[in-house]
């Protein structure tokens, strides 16, 4: 699984020598957020990435989602190189093939629970057709009766469940979660992680998540560690 030499169509995600360097205010002193990362995640796998703050975890997820593009190397989703795509092509990949879950939920306060879940479908232009799917997802996370509520009325754990539904609405090939329990207490965090794993499995979606918690990391098929922008794919770190 380590250091693949060629992209495979059945790989949900593949990094090949990926680097990300940011310019800083100090001339000649760029910041290396990610260094020569190479890995592949076959479809259906669940991978946890652990690391300290500033180690490059979020950069890795942004690159994986096509939100950002690498300064070196190749990021492939389903065998297609994101770096070779136009901005709008990457947007379409994100719209249809990637689901995102964030630490701070990023639910929109002016939308109801149902509407927050439906947002990706609205953006994709198939709002009407997604109503049943949204209702199904909400029912599966136990929020069917809260569908019409404003999201401000939800607890943190409930908000993250809504965010998971939103991420899965478009049946993405790849689900990326950035510290999904970072803003929750342990008990609720555990429940949310269990739900995330279950939902990913039920939806047959590849899951890559970033976490601080070694316990939550152990729930994955594989655990990688990232430090100072370098990724260590040795599973013994857990």
């Amino acid at each position, binding site marked *: 699984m380590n250091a693949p030499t060629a992209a495979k169509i059945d790989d949900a995600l593949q990094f090949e020598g990926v680097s990300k360097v940011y310019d800083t205010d100090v001339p000649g002193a760029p910041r290396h957020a990610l260094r020569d990362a190479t890995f592949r995640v076959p479809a259906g796998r669940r991978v946890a990435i652990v690391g300290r703050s500033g180690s490059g975890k979020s950069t890795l997820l*942004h690159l994986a989602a096509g939100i950002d593009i690498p300064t070196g190397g190749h990021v492939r989703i389903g065998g297609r190189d994101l770096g070779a795509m136009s901005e709008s092509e990457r947007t379409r990949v994100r719209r249809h093939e990637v689901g995102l879950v964030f630490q701070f939920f990023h639910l929109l306060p*002016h939308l109801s629970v149902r509407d927050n879940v439906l947002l990706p479908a609205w953006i994709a232009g198939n*709002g009407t057709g997604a109503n049943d799917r949204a209702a199904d997802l909400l029912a599966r996370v136990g929020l069917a009766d809260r569908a019409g509520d404003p999201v401000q009325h939800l607890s943190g754990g409930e908000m993250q469940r809504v965010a998971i539904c939103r991420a899965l609405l478009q049946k993405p090939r790849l689900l990326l979660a950035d510290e999904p329990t970072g803003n929750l207490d342990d008990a609720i965090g555990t429940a949310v992680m269990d739900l995330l794993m279950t939902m990913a499995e039920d939806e047959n979606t590849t899951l890559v998540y970033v976490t601080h918690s070694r316990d939550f990391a152990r729930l994955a098929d594989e655990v990688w560690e990232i430090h100072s922008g370098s990724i260590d794919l040795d599973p013994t770190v857990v």
Partner: protein
Amino acid sequence: MLRFFGRSLAAHVRGGRSLFALTVFGVALGVAAVLAIQIINRSSLAAFEGSMQAVSGEADLTILGRTPSLADSLLPVVLGRPGVAAALPLVRLPAAVASKAHASRANALFLDIIGVDFFTPVRLPWQGAPGDLAAALGQRGWAAFTPTLAQQQGWTVGDSVRVWVGSREVCLVVGALIDFQSLSPLASSKLVVVDIAQAQVLLGRPGFVNQIDVVLAEGADRERVAADLITQLGAGVRVVTPQQRSTQTAGLLAAFRLNLTALSLISLFVGLFLVYAATQASLVRRRAEFGTLRSLGASRGQVLALILGEVSVLGLLGVALGLPLGYWSARANVDVVSIALTNLYLLDEIAAVRVPLSLYAQAAAIGIGGAVLGALIPALDMSRRDPRALLSAFTMHERIDALAPRLAQLGIGILGLSGLWFVAGGQRWQHAGFVLAVALLAGLPLLTPWTIRRLTGPLRVNGFGLGYSLKSLGARLQSSAFAVAALAVAVSMLVGISIMVDSFRDTLEVWIQTTVQADIYVSPAAWRGPGEEGYLDRDLARQLAAWPGVLAVDRLRSFAAYTEQDERLMLVGVDVGLPVASQRFSLLLGDPATAFQRVHEEGFVLVGETLARRKNLWVGDEVRLYTPAGIRAFPIAGVYYDYDARGGGVLMDLRTLSAHWQDDALNGIALYLQPGLDADVVVDQLRAALPVEALDLLSNRRLRTEAINIFDQTFAVTRLLQGISLLIAVCGVALMLLVMAREQVSELALYRALGSTRRQIFGLFVGKGLGMGGLGLVLGGAGGVILALILIFVINRAYFGWTIQLHWPWWSFGEQALTILATSVAASLYPAWKASRTPATELGREDS
């Protein structure tokens, strides 16, 4: 702290150049509107005062007739009174330059000819060598012109200038140049001086003058001399000081000036919204900065001073931009206002625009003070918070959302209370209409947040389109409510004034169609200019009456007369006995058949609606007027609709007028043609045979068109103010969308992360702009209708006394609605572009 202030301000500006520039521009436009109108207002009065200063500069008192002219036989009486050092008789007559270059109505050049007695100790500012009095007295047509006019027209001493005085052609000779503007910089350049005897001959009224200026002996008491003169000269004259003449003119212009000032203040009011909203947005963004300062020991006062200091700099920049803009706007529009003054009040046109420094200082104070005022509430709110609250995240949107119902209640309360006050007795106060208008413009913004929430709340969104944009406006009340409120105020003004102007125009058209019944109208060309003199030659009148195809001739005489209370009004004499007379004047009160019979046969009069309302004179009352024989009472047979801006008129039969005023002059003639004759063909025949350059020969159709053109010119300046307000409001839309683009970085990044394209984000913001325009239109439209009712039925009645029939200009509404929506969309393009550039990597940013 000062060093911090400088650095903080610089960083703040660098961080939001577009926001800062838009806010400065909004303040600048508000300042410009106020300054431009103040300059125009001041210039309108200064034009009259300037010419008065130039003509009667040395006079301590002026003797004016309460009848069209004064007998010059009064002069020895005046000179013989104690305390009088000199008495300077004066004849004023309007003239139109007769040349091909000035033949068209658009290019007409009017002169104000002043006849002075060169034997009196009059001091005139001759340019070059002193005037040769022998030539002035002996040479026929000798006249002194101003150097400015001579230069403009390319005239030099010795040139002949043909002019029309009434319907007579007169040849003037440029005998000397007199620089009146050295005496009074604002004096009209079109003043022309001739010998008084020549002027009397030109006027066709030898032995009469228009005024006598009195110079008092040293130490003489002005009040006492004035009282003595009134006693000696009788009730037919008025003795006034220059200040009294200025005050009377200011009174005449008061409503005109007040209306313009009110409109300009609305522009400033809209500008203040921008400052408020921009300050609010800026402060929310920088709350952590203030929290840190407070944690480090800065006092509330220091924080407040810091914020207000920044806003003052913003106001200062707005003023720096607004002052030249205001001056330029005034210069660009002075001609339009000048035309309105001449049309409405027969006053001198504005010759020059001079702005005292105090006016700039006043405008600067209004700009900076307004900016500080606009920022005061958010600044106080921010300075009062404790450091912990400042350092923790809070959303202003939730606050305004919670406040929306209470603000709406306050708005309804203001509107309701002002309405109750008006009904309960406030309506008796002349300015009550402005109280209602201010209440409306204050209440409307307070209703805005609640209205937006009510309108956008129930929207069922099923996609990422316009509905989503509108829904998100309701969710961002803090930003959207201010932009929509500012737009609503501007739209109210636009719609309200449009309804009023269109209703007025429509009413006037109907009135003109009813009253303009003759086929051809003839008047002296010079009658169009300032002043009231301008006579038609009697022979010409007879010639016209005998013209083939002319069935009947209606003669008109009009001049200023005075009531017993010394109030000026226009007296109009017409041939009431003509069969068509009853059609020429639509009666508001009185039975037409009886009324016109009484006016024709029994010496009754009709009074104009404006005078009737102002003086509470109705059918059965009598109006008491000064005649050469003293005060005479004229019973009122009816009240007719009129649209006079100078206080209204009294209409009587020409025979009654001639009998009481011993005046047989004519100012106009209307010709009724035999059925089947084409008025335009007859006008062409008359033009070929008569001295047409001296005359305004207009067919019925042309006269109606001309009247409407004059109306349109009169209201041209209001269009400018409407435009400025709308421009400021549109800046507000752009500013608030920029604020949203900045505040919603996290939300926009989320959309991008969820697969939204840049084009979709762009569309989302354009939708917001369109939504703001639409909401502003809904609120402003409702406000505008109410404002129109206030303008038509309260303000207009109180100040002018006109009856205006309400008319809904649907076509104009449609055009304005499209313009507002289009400009709102245009205003959203740049913010939309900025928002669409938000990268998904900004997702980590905290949303405010």
